[in-house]
């Protein structure tokens, strides 16, 4: 595997983990613009737990403990944040991320604005394995009764309440587990690049992650996977294309096309790339083809 491809694969895997972290709350209709806050928490916590001048714990244990820590923070802030709705929730989660970033930059023992080196290295295999595990977990999560509750809340909260769904609990769980996944993503980031710096986890990252989820689609667990893959791979393809055409201008302006594409998506497919109907059609097509193949084999 060439270095370039490997670097792109790492970015893709991290994007996928982040996307699922934000997908879980989004599946019940909550817009979380605080991904960067959770990622920062996860990255610094696991790095510090692992560092020799920190606690010196093994990497795996540090990652698990940092997930639990970030989950606890997520649970604590979910109680006030989930009282807000829509754009106010976007603002509240954004504020949370800014607060985390501010604290990280001003902590001497975390390296302050200079960032913090992380000791143990997570090779590409671990990053890929974690990303796959997160994807499988989220598919499972959405197939449970709780997943059904989240989707029903997304469609119509008042009616879900009418049939006895505990809307508040479901939302808190989704937000908290999402926070844990973002923390996991941050921890993996830190251990792969062996360096964390709060400024890398800025609001632009949070916006991108939310975009992956919203443009990929929140109705099925395929959405964030498709969204993250699309938005990390597509700009690179645009760039390679522009380079092969020998045009610097095109290479530099690929984000213009990217932006136009996002606007186009909002117009033609506001519910995201992958919808429930589309998933069913694909499943129907595949099973139909299998049936035809079986019939031909007889």
């Amino acid at each position, binding site marked *: 595997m060439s270095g370039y491809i490997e670097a792109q694969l790492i970015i893709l895997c991290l994007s996928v983990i982040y996307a699922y972290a934000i997908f879980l709350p989004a599946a019940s209709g909550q817009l979380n613009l605080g991904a960067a806050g959770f990622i920062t928490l996860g990255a610094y916590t696991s790095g510090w737990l692992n560092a020799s001048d920190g606690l010196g714990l093994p990497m795996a244990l540090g990652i698990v403990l940092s997930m639990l820590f970030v989950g606890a923070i997520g649970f604590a802030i979910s109680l006030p944040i989930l009282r807000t709705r829509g754009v106010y929730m976007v603002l509240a989660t954004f504020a949370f991320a800014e607060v985390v970033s501010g604290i990280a930059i001003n902590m001497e023992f975390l390296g302050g604005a200079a960032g913090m080196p992380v000791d143990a290295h997570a090779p590409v295999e671990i990053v890929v394995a974690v990303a796959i595990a997160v994807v499988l977990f989220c598919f499972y999560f959405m197939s449970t009764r709780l997943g059904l509750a989240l989707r029903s809340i997304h*469609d119509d909260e008042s009616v879900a309440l009418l049939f006895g769904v505990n809307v508040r609990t479901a939302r808190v769980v989704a937000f908290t587990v999402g926070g844990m996944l973002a923390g996991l993503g941050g921890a993996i980031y830190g251990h792969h690049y062996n360096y964390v710096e709060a400024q890398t986890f800025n609001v632009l990252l949070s916006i991108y992650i939310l975009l992956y989820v919203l443009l990929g689609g929140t109705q099925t667990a395929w959405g964030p996977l498709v969204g993250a893959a699309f938005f990390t791979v597509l700009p690179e393809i645009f760039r390679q294309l522009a380079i092969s055409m020998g045009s610097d201008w095109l290479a530099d302006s690929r984000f213009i096309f990217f932006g136009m594409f996002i606007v186009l998506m909002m117009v033609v497919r506001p519910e995201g790339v992958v919808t429930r109907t589309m998933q069913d059609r694909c499943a129907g097509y595949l099973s139909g083809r299998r049936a035809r193949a079986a019939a031909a084999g007889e």
Partner: protein
Amino acid sequence: MLLDAREVNVRYGRNHAVKTASVSLDHGEIVTVLGANGAGKSSLLKALLGTVRAEGRISFDGTDISGWAAPRRVKAGLVMVPEGRQIFVSLTVHENLLMGAWCRNDDLETETEAVYERFPNLAERRHMPASVLSGGEQQMLAISRALLARPKLMMLDEPSLGLSPILVRQLFDLIRDLNREGLAIMLVEQNTRMALATAERGYVLELGAIVLKGRAKDLSSDSRLEEAYLGGKSDRASL
């Protein structure tokens, strides 16, 4: 007496939406609640279901449920088919039915099969998102979903809204069928004629207060019914 609500009051800030209304309903009865837009019909239903804060004493099936939260009332058999159908559009037809049975965890298969037998259209699309259903099918799904909650009393909030005349007739046939099978029904309607032809008794709300009540037959020939729909006397004086 299955449902006995005494002196129910609902207030939204300074707006007194339901004014000391008392309604009752017997086992196996169909009762209709009529009134113009904004007369307080939906607020009364919400008070009975426990989704708005209300004063008054409500007893259901012999138990005082006044202080109960909505999910507990659903479990006890007080189930609502909300206005405008409000099915879960991105959930499949089958998942919508499961949502109706949310408060139960026993075997649902015989009941879902019974629904599919009653509505072959739903059976065909059971694994499709509910958004593909037509308006009439969505209403059937909303009612089926409520049935899965095993209601003793089903409250329907303007079920005929937005349906074609043929579908409205089918809907009222279904309501009568369900009632014949023993289900008590409270029907909130703007379609006065159909509602009074279906129900045994009726209440008429005007500006939040019950201004008329009695047997459906008597109400349909009462001139005061029309008056209630044209608005309260105070309203007309101000015109």
